C-alpha cells in the first residue's frame, strides 16, 4: 500500500505523483482489509492511469469492490468536463450497460420452497444461456434498430412486460441519444437473436429471500419485506456491446495517435468530448445500453412466465413486479456540483452503480422522495443487497457506489482449487439450488473467489455513498 494516504476511516488518497502524468489524485473507498486486497493486483495502478486522462474532475475514484480490470479498474469512476474532457470506451468496457434488476414477488419463502425445483427447471428451460445459444425473440435489422433506440419500452411494446415496468427502470427504460447509424454491420450481426439471453461468466438469475430489512420506511416504499421472495437478474448487452467497444477502440486509438495523446494503457484510448468521434461513440454506446435493458426486460418475461407456470395464477396476483433496473458499466452526461458550480460532466462508471439521492431528476417518481434503489449482487453463496442513493454520493463520488462484491481470486486459480460439483453439493446442503451447464464455471464463480460483499456495502455505508435498505440470501441460482 506504498504511496497511499489514509484520509478517513474508509477513504484513501493516491497522491498526484504516484505515477507521472497524474492530473488529479486517486481516491479509493476501502477499509484496511479491502485496501490490502486491492493492493494485491494492478488495480491501484489503474486508478493512477485514469487520473492522467485530460479533463478529469476532482479525482480518479474507486469503489470498495475495486479489482484489476483492463483500462479502468473494475469499480472505477471518473468524471470529465465537457470542455477539455474526454470519453473512453476503456471506462465503460466491452459489456456495455451490464447491469442488474431486482424483481419482487408477494410470495414468501415457504410458498416458493415447495416447488422451487420446478421453478428452477422452468426458468432454465425458458432462458437461453451460454455461447452460441440463440434467443427466442427473432430480431431482424429493423427491429434491432427499434431496440437500439427504444430499449425496454420497445420490448414491452412487443409483449414482454407491462407498461408499469418502465417506471421502475433507470431513465424510464430508454437511454436517450442512441443512433443506430453509428453502429457497424457487425453489431447488427452479433445482436441478432440475442435479446433475452443470459450469457455466461458472472451473469445469473437468482431466486432470493429478503433476510433482513435495515431501513423499514424505505423498504416499505420499495415494497420489500422480510421473508419475501425476490429474483435478481444480472446480464448485459451481449455481442452488441462487445462489438461496439471493439469497433470504437479502433476509432479512439486512431484519434489518440492523431492528437498525440500519451496513454498509460492503450485500452484507455479516448476522443475529446465535442468531437465527432466522441459523439459517435456516445450514440453507439447508448444503442448497446438500450439493447442491454431490453435484454433484461425479456429475461424478466421468462422469469414471470416461470412463476405463473409453477405457482399458478398470473404475475399480478403473484406480485411479480420490478423494483429497479440499473446499469453498472456506462458513461453518461450528468449534472454535478463542483466547487459550487453546476456542471455537465461525462461520468464513466466501470463496475460502479449510480447512487442518486431523493429529489434527483434521474430517478423514478415513485422513489423521488427517498432516493434511487441501488442493486448489489453478491456471490452465489452469501447474500445480495438493495441500497439507496445518498447526498453523500453526490458530494464524494459523482453519485456512485459499488456494484458487487468484487473478485479476489483469478478464474484460473478458482478452477484449480475449487471443484464445481463439490461446490454445487455444498451450496445445496445450505439450501441453495444451483443449475449450470458447466461445473467449471461454478468453480470460477465460487463464493471464495469474491470479496465479502457484506464488508463492501458496509464500507459504502460508512463512507456515506449509499445506505443499506435490505439484504437478500440466495435460494436458487441459474448460471450460464
Amino acid at each position, binding site marked *: 500500500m506504498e504511496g497511499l494516504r489514509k484520509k478517513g476511516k474508509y477513504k484513501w488518497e493516491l497522491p498526484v505523483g504516484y505515477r507521472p502524468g497524474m492530473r488529479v489524485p486517486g481516491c479509493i473507498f476501502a477499509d484496511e482489509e479491502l485496501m490490502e486486497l486491492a493492493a494485491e*493486483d494492478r*488495480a491501484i495502478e489503474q486508478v493512477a492511469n485514469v487520473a492522467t486522462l485530460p479533463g478529469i474532475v476532482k479525482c480518479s475514484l474507486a469503489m470498495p469492490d475495486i*479489482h*484489476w*480490470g*483492463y*483500462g479502468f479498474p*473494475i469499480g472505477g469512476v471518473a468524471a470529465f468536463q465537457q470542455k477539455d474532457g474526454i470519453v473512453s470506451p*476503456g471506462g465503460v*468496457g*466491452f*459489456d456495455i450497460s451490464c447491469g442488474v434488476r431486482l424483481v419482487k414477488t408477494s410470495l414468501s419463502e415457504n410458498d416458493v420452497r415447495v416447488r422451487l425445483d420446478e421453478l428452477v427447471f422452468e426458468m432454465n428451460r425458458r432462458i437461453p444461456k*451460454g*455461447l*452460441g*445459444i440463440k434467443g427466442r425473440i427473432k430480431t431482424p435489422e429493423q427491429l434491432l434498430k427499434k431496440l437500439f433506440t427504444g430499449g425496454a419500452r420497445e420490448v414491452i411494446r412487443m409483449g414482454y412486460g407491462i407498461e408499469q415496468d418502465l417506471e421502475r427502470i433507470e431513465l424510464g427504460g430508454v437511454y436517450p441519444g442512441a443512433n443506430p447509424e453509428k453502429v457497424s454491420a*457487425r453489431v447488427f*450481426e*452479433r445482436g441478432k437473436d440475442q435479446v433475452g439471453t443470459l*450469457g*455466461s*461468466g458472472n451473469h445469473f438469475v437468482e431466486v432470493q429471500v429478503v433476510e433482513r430489512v435495515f431501513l423499514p420506511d424505505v423498504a416499505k416504499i420499495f415494497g420489500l419485506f422480510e421473508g419475501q421472495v425476490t429474483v435478481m437478474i444480472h446480464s448485459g448487452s451481449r*455481442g452488441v456491446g*462487445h*462489438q461496439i*467497444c*471493439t469497433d470504437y*477502440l*479502433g476509432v479512439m*486509438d486512431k484519434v489518440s*495517435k492523431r492528437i498525440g495523446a500519451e496513454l498509460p*494503457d*492503450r*485500452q484507455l*484510448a479516448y476522443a475529446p468530448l465535442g468531437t465527432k468521434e466522441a459523439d459517435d461513440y456516445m450514440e453507439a454506446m447508448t444503442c448497446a445500453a438500450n439493447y442491454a435493458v431490453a435484454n433484461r426486460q425479456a429475461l424478466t418475461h421468462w422469469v414471470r412466465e416461470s412463476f405463473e407456470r409453477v405457482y399458478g395464477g398470473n404475475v399480478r396476483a403473484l406480485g411479480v413486479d420490478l423494483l429497479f433496473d440499473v446499469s453498472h458499466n456506462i458513461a453518461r452526461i450528468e449534472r454535478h456540483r463542483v466547487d459550487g458550480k453546476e456542471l455537465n460532466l461525462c461520468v464513466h462508471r466501470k463496475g460502479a452503480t449510480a447512487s442518486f439521492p431523493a429529489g434527483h431528476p434521474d430517478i423514478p417518481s415513485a422513489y423521488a422522495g427517498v432516493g434511487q434503489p441501488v442493486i448489489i449482487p453478491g456471490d452465489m453463496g452469501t447474500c445480495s443487497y438493495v441500497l439507496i442513493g445518498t447526498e453523500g454520493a453526490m458530494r464524494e463520488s459523482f453519485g456512485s457506489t459499488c456494484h458487487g462484491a468484487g*473478485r*479476489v*481470486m*483469478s*478464474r*484460473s*486459480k478458482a478452477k484449480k482449487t475449487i471443484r464445481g460439483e463439490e461446490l454445487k453439493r455444498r451450496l445445496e446442503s445450505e439450501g441453495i439450488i444451483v443449475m449450470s451447464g*458447466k461445473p*467449471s*464455471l461454478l468453480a470460477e464463480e465460487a463464493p471464495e473467489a469474491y470479496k465479502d460483499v457484506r464488508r463492501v456495502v458496509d464500507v459504502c455505508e460508512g463512507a456515506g455513498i449509499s445506505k443499506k435498505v435490505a439484504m437478500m440470501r440466495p435460494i436458487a441460482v441459474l448460471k*450460464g
Partner: protein
Amino acid sequence: MEFRTIEHTADIGVEVTADSLGELFRGAALAMVSLIVDLGKIEGKIEREISLKADDLDELMFMWLNEILYLLSAKGLIFKEFDVSISDCCISSKMIGEKFTPERHKVKEEIKAATYHELGVERRNEGWMVRVIFDV
C-alpha cells in the same frame, strides 16, 4: 511456439512465445480458442481465408483475435488450424475449422473480447512474445 495462461483477477490472460511472428499470431489464436473449447473437439470441415491490415503489430494482434471472436459470435464458426503469414503489419491466414455447436464443443469459457490492456508484441531473445488479456 508455446503458450500458457496468466493470472488476472477478473479475466484471463495468455502469454505466447514463438520463433517467428507468424507462429506468434498462430499461437495466440490457438491459445484463445483453447480457452473457449478443447481444440481436439474441433473438426476440420470448413476453410476460410482472412487478411487484415494494421498500423502496428499490437493493433494487428488486437484485430486478429477479435476477428476470430467475431467469426465465432456472428457466423458461428470455430477454427483449430491457422496457416499464418505476416508482412508489414498485414496478416493473411487460411483457417480450418467447422460450424460451432454448443452441445458438442462444450464451451469452457465465453470470451467477450481481446483487450489492449498490457498488449505488447515484443522481441524476446531470438524470437517473439506477447501477452493478451481477454474480457470474459
